[in-house]
């Protein structure tokens, strides 16, 4: 459904941010792109979003090449990036301006209700906590019902408890609409908590190093042995030691083939 074909982005000569990334994402799949900072994962996400143009290669959604921001692709940034002069409801409805007002209100109210923010519509963004603001920004991207939702380290600025609760909110929203979800993260636990598949990137040059399926049952128990093993496999891929026989064994344990 979403296809990346040998995608490269070179900012300056000799500094390839992303090189030769090919990826096939199924409809409704949740993919975590995991990597340390500077490995090109944010660059990759921006290419998929159409915010930046690739140097080589293509991104295509259901056969249509993505060259600019596309109505079927929603983006959630690392910071909430709410517009401070719009209240919460207006921020959520930002992408719905070409809809009739009544429909807009209905969809915004339903969305706020779903993440526990009913009654917050008239508040200003500055009155929200970090977790509330990020929920509003996720709603803003999802309320237009995109087929693909791209998220760039959306929870990295939040504390662990808030992050875990937002994971639940996000999975609840995904359950309702089943968009394809691509989450960039450097948090291995987040990847295992959310994703069907972890794409591990390594830096210099930014490239895909491993593609690890995570078919743990949902809802996922963060304390289960399978969860811990899956984290260990991703960590091994991150530091490049996945080749070790032990890691290969663990990868099978976490759920099958990982190339």
């Amino acid at each position: 459904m979403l296809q990346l074909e040998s995608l490269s982005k070179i900012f300056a000569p000799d500094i390839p941010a992303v090189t030769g990334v090919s990826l096939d994402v199924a409809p409704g799949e949740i993919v975590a792109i995991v990597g340390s900072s500077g490995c090109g994962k944010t660059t990759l996400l921006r290419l998929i979003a159409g915010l930046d143009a690739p140097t080589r290669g293509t991104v295509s959604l259901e056969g249509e090449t993505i060259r600019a921001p596309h109505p079927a692709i929603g983006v959630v940034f690392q910071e909430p990036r709410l517009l401070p002069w719009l209240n919460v409801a207006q921020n959520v409805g930002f992408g719905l301006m070409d809809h009739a007002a009544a429909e807009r209100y209905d969809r915004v109210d339903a969305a706020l209700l779903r993440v526990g923010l009913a009654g917050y519509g008239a508040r200003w963004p500055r009155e929200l906590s970090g977790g509330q603001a990020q929920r509003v920004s996720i709603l803003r991207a999802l309320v237009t019902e995109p087929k693909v939702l791209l998220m760039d380290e959306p929870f990295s600025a939040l504390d662990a408890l808030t992050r875990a609760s937002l994971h639940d909110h996000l999975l609840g929203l995904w359950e309702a609409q089943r968009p394809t979800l691509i989450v960039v993260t450097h948090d291995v636990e987040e990847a295992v908590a959310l994703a069907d598949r972890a794409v591990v990137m390594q830096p210099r040059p930014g490239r895909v190093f491993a593609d690890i399926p995570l078919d743990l049952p949902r809802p996922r128990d963060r304390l289960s042995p399978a969860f811990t093993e899956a984290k260990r496999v991703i960590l091994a891929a991150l530091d490049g030691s996945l080749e070790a026989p032990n890691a290969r064994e663990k990868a099978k344990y976490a759920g099958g083939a990982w190339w």
Partner: protein
Amino acid sequence: MKKRANSLLSTRLATGLAIPLTAAILYEAGARLGIFEARLLPPPSRIAATLWALAASGELWAHIAATMLRLAAGFGIGALAGIMLGALTGASQTASRLLDPTIQALRAIPSLAWVPLFILWLGIFEASKVALIAVGVFFPVYLGVMAAITNIDRKIIEVGRAFRLSPLALTRRVLLPAVLPDCVVALRSGLGLGFMFVVAAELMGASEGLGFLLLDGQQLGKPDQILAAIFAFAVAGKICDGALVAAFRPLLRWQDSFAQSLTRSAAAPLGPPPLPAH
């Protein structure tokens, strides 16, 4: 709720007036007891009487009207030019490279230095005065608007891009609201300088206006008239600034100061109480 807001306002008014009122009373008492020489330092009662006499004869209003008319013309021209050029250099790097060095060089010239030239070019009547005020207003507005535009958060513009806003929609829905607060500040400092330069212009020769009252009071040895004119300037300046702020207030409600939001959340929380944690 309304009552509470009113009493809050009157408390604030009383607090703000405490120092000027005390000073006026002490001043008045000092003058009556002969501690100051009342001829050169007229007490508030004399100033008030002078002001009243000027108002009753209609003279005061004519002077205020003359001053405000000059100010309005100068401020209008200066602010408009400042907004347009500031927007241009803020939005376009080419325009900035082309125009900004020249404008900054002109800004380095003390505005009063233009006076002899303006009088030669435009005569001694209204045109040269309006030109001087416009020059004074132009620079702070230009600088403020340019800075407002160059300081727009690129991350917020990117939100507009992600939602595929057309350039027009991006301007209307993102750029204008983003620069508005700083533009209002720029207009306010422009207005302040406008008042400064309207006095300067009128001191250099005018047959009416509050600045004329100042000069007339000096030449005829009437310090009470000078102080009455100064008082009128203070009131007019405060009213104009307040009107400017009030005009933009509906668009800047979202920006209510931190202190206000604290008072409000302590007094009456809006909507449902905050949820625990996140």
